């Protein structure tokens, strides 16, 4: 199923369309949220909140409005709003801290992807995740984070260069 199919399904049958939308988008939504907030449990909660809000909104939209939606960007705008308070937190508590809740849910520093992303500040991390973990087009990212496409592009390129430079000598060409 692609985005157009999903939108068509939502127009013809809101509940069935919502089911299709959740199945179609949840792998990407969850993956992106985990990389943004670094915690699987939080990512799951945020995904749920995102979908609940999406469902409430969809029930009130006209067929015409739905047909014209950019679904991925719309979902991610909702997701980013929900995720806002969880971004830029200090990274996972030290592994030795046995009192820390959900310590197993934090993405380990030993995860290569996490290691690379943790080199970035919150704003760079966000755009890199949206671009290279989620795969959104720059135009969508721009409207989600509220910055011009050109700025987003150069932020992403600079961040990728930074990550590349921190790599082992055998990485990249």
């Amino acid at each position, binding site marked *: 199923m692609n985005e157009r199919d999903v939108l068509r*399904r939502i127009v013809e*049958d809101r*509940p*069935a*369309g*919502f*089911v*299709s939308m*959740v*199945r179609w988008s*949840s*792998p990407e939504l*969850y*993956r992106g949220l*985990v*990389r943004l907030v670094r915690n*699987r449990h939080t990512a*799951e909660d945020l*995904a*749920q909140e995102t*979908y*609940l809000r999406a*469902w409430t909104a969809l029930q009130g939209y006209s067929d015409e409005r739905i047909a014209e939606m950019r679904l991925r960007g719309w979902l991610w705008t909702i997701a980013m709003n929900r995720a806002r308070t969880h971004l830029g937190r200090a990274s996972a508590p030290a592994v030795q801290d046995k009192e820390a809740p959900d310590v197993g849910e934090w993405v380990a520093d030993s995860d*290569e*992807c996490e290691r*690379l*992303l943790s080199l970035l500040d919150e704003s760079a991390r966000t755009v*890199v*995740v949206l671009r*290279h*973990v989620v*795969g959104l087009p720059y135009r969508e990212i721009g409207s989600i984070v509220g910055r011009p496409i050109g700025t987003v592009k150069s932020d992403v390129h600079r961040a*990728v260069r930074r*990550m*590349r430079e921190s*790599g082992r000598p055998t*990485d*990249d060409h």
Partner: protein
Amino acid sequence: MIIDILNQDVPTPAGLIETVLRSSGVAHLASLHPSPVGDVVVVRWDDAVTAVVPEPHADGVLATYEQRTGVPAYADDVPPAQWSERIEHALASGKGSRIKVALVGVTEFQKDVLAATALIPVGETRPYSWVARESKHSSAVRAVGSALGRNPIPLIIPCHRVVRSDGSLGHYAFGTPMKAALLDAEEMMPRVDAPLVGALRGEVVCYPTCRHARRIKHPVPFSSVGSAAQAGYRPCRDCRPV
């Protein structure tokens, strides 16, 4: 490559989709309840029933539920007491008309047929031709039979109360003996073995199971609405014989 590392998959937790669909109220819920035909799984969406399935067949029906309706049905092991009471009372008493139903994944024709069938009161029967006429598909009597055979909400939508004009019971998805047993339990056995009856000095002709017909002290049998009309009887406005 950096991009490859960033691209790597993070497996979606099992149960995320189910949690989302349950908490949004979009998923339908399936619960087990006793009934005159044994334990049945009742699927609901909010407070409307979408399916009634005998327990032995439930797994098969639930497995294809999303395919037919577009939404999944998940188990609701401990349904609200209020729901259980309402549905079990309706199943036991045959008073399914009080229960809201939602016909999903059925054709318009089936909806018409089932809506007409839902009108048949407890303890009464109607012939297939009556259902055909009531559903505005008079010429499609055989198709009516097929549509009833695919009734997703048996017992609540009383397809067991639809019988042949010749008095024989006709088909039933749970088997003819079950149909007979259900009708028996509703005490519909008419005193007169004729297609229609009127009162001796009456004006109205009814199906024998019509509640007015049961009160007739000296029932006069008729073979058709036409022959009753010739004798001066008009069709009952409640059971509307055809």
